[in-house]
């Protein structure tokens, strides 16, 4: 076991296409770190650089206390699970599992003992003589995992190992991998584009975009204190509601204006985020999680008036799309576009500027599309971001490691 360090690592393809830009990341011994981001964000490239399958253009990668930049993959003592499993089709399950041991000249008897033990743990005991073609998707996935585990490497590298499984199996294997990792306590770097996978599996999650690391933190901190607009919009499902608002100072109080409604930002909030005062007289990006949007009756807080566009029942709760008067974010390049809800419905928007606000409401509320509704928002639960850079307005208590999205 060993820690993995990225020190100012960059990767440039073909002279001018940067895939990874100045990546600094430390994966501690025994830690499970997930690299997550939309496709093309450089997460897989970063992982392949650790494996030695991709050359490092600049910077340094360390595994344990060794700089591995110039070591071939076989000398790095890591194991990798590929997205398509990459099982050797002409070898039986046993030979697949034993291949790495054989290459490392482990004695035959020891090979047999270890392969059989892993096969038993993973429930592959009956299938050791089969070829990969004779296995189901889930079984192939297990063989691929087993091939990594049996080597007892310093670190596991996993490149979207679950993305070829169907939804149910994926949830099951997700838990299985997390459990195996906790039992073995092997340093693991896991790449995925699925933020749910990232949130549920990792000790820490590193969000990447366009080759740049956006934020690394525990799942909870990532969710509660996103460092910038991109992380805010990428993490969480359904995604955070984001829109523009105006900030104004009036008799020492800070007022926030959303569309045509205005509410006060309480003094404790202003004290916790002193930089907020600097935005007085300017526009700012405001975010609120869907679960923090509440139907107004019985709740305090700022009121926003809107109209229901759609009600999606999820069984335990309902997801309500509400059209409110507010300015949508102009800089769509600062957010994860894929996570944004569709714009206001066609034809019905008599409002000049409208955004769709997602709310997770109690399932007992009777709501139907077209109805007018009033929502309550606690200003203390709002997230504030700079409109130009996308960076979160820092909190005085614990400033998150901020990284600008643009540039």
């Amino acid at each position, binding site marked *: 076991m060993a820690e993995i360090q990225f020190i100012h690592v960059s990767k440039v393809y073909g002279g001018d296409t940067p895939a990874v830009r100045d990546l600094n990341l430390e994966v501690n011994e025994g830690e499970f770190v997930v690299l997550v981001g939309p496709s093309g964000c450089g997460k897989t490239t970063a992982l392949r650089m650790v494996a030695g399958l991709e050359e490092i253009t600049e910077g340094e990668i360390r595994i344990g206390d060794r700089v591995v930049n110039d070591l071939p993959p076989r000398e790095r003592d890591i194991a990798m699970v590929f997205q398509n499993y990459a099982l050797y089709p002409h070898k039986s399950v046993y030979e697949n599992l034993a291949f790495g041991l054989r290459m490392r000249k482990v004695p035959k008897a020891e090979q047999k003992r270890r392969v059989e033990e892993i096969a038993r743990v993973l429930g592959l005991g009956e299938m050791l003589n089969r070829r990969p073609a004779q296995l189901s998707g889930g079984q192939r996935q297990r063989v691929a995992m087993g*091939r990594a585990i049996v080597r007892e490497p310093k670190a596991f590298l996993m490149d979207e190992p679950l993305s070829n499984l169907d939804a149910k199996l994926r949830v099951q294997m997700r838990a299985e991998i997390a459990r195996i990792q906790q039992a073995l306590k092997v340093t693991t770097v896991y790449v995925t584009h699925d933020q749910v996978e990232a949130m549920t599996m990792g000790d820490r999650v590193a969000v990447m975009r366009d080759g740049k690391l956006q934020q690394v933190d525990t799942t909870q901190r990532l969710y509660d204190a996103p460092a910038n607009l991109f992380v805010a919009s990428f993490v969480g499902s359904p995604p955070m509601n984001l829109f523009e608002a105006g900030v104004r100072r009036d008799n020492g109080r800070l007022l926030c204006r959303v569309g045509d409604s205005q509410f006060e930002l309480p003094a404790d909030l202003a004290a916790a985020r002193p930089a907020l005062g600097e935005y007085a007289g300017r526009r700012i990006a405001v975010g609120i999680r869907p679960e923090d949007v509440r139907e107004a009756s019985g709740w305090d807080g700022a009121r926003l008036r809107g109209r229901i566009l759609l009600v999606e029942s999820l069984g335990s709760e309902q997801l309500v799309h509400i059209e409110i008067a507010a300015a949508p974010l102009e800089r769509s390049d600062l957010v994860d576009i894929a996570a944004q809800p569709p714009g206001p419905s066609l034809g019905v928007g008599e409002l000049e500027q409208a955004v769709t606000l997602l709310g997770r409401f109690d399932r007992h509320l009777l709501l139907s599309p077209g109805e007018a509704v009033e929502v309550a928002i606690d200003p203390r639960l709002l997230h504030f971001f700079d409109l130009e850079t996308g960076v979160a307005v820092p909190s005085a208590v614990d400033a998150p490691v901020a990284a600008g999205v643009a540039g």
Partner: protein
Amino acid sequence: MSSVTQIAPTPVAPVVTRPTRRRRVRKAAWNLLGVIVFLVMVFPVYWMIATAFKPGHDILSYTPQWIPTHPTLSNFHDATHMPFFWDAAKNSLIVVSIVVALSLVLAFLAALALAKFRFYGRRPFIVLILGVQMVPLAALIIPLYIMMSRLNDVKGVNHVLGVDKLGGVIAMYLTFVLPFAVWTLRGFLLGVPKELEESAMVDGTTRFGAFVRILLPLVGPGLVATSIFAFIQAWNEFIIAYVFLHTPQKQTLMVWLASFTTLRGTDWGPLMAGATLCSLPVIVFFLLVQRRIAFGLTAGAVKG
């Protein structure tokens, strides 16, 4: 305009029966055509074998004898006792085995480079490999002969290469076997996902080790196809061997076969017996290796 969106009317009951009969007739016609093509292909082979077993007067008889009524092995005896038969057989075997072995090794390595590495001039090289296969062989014989005959004077290589040397013929054969072999193997190699070698490398092999342990077994069918092609080409080749090899002891079987046709006429019986014997190795080789072509080994490597 409206006709575009029209839906075809559902066929009514009587319409259903007619296509089945028409289909049966069409199928029978295709089968008949298949049988005719088969007969056309097989007849010369049959005639060769049948003639090989006929005594001399039956061969030249004006009433064709479809089945040898007085089968005899004397033609085979005559053929194998012709001068230089065993020399020719030995030469052919040497040429074929070296051509097959060399073409497999060289073509695999070249195909590996083309399929798995990016290098300057890769694309022109691929085009070149396709292009050289379009040059007619007959047009090349004289220039090649001149080139080869000059090699006879070059010290160091003239033991192996040159006119009237088996090495010269082997080199010639490689020039037209290799482009095809490289092209075929490249296709097979491209079909193997790159994660397999990467996985092997992470598992502890060198890059070359990954090629040998993972890629080589997986392109087995491609190697078989290539080796069959090389075998047939080198075994059946006549013109180059005829032009390049002068001394009877150095000739290959195909050139030896031609020696049955002389100014005084053709000795058909022994010629056909010799031809039958010459086609045996190809058939045996094909039967030995053909079973490996049939199935694709890469099934199940990655998500199916």
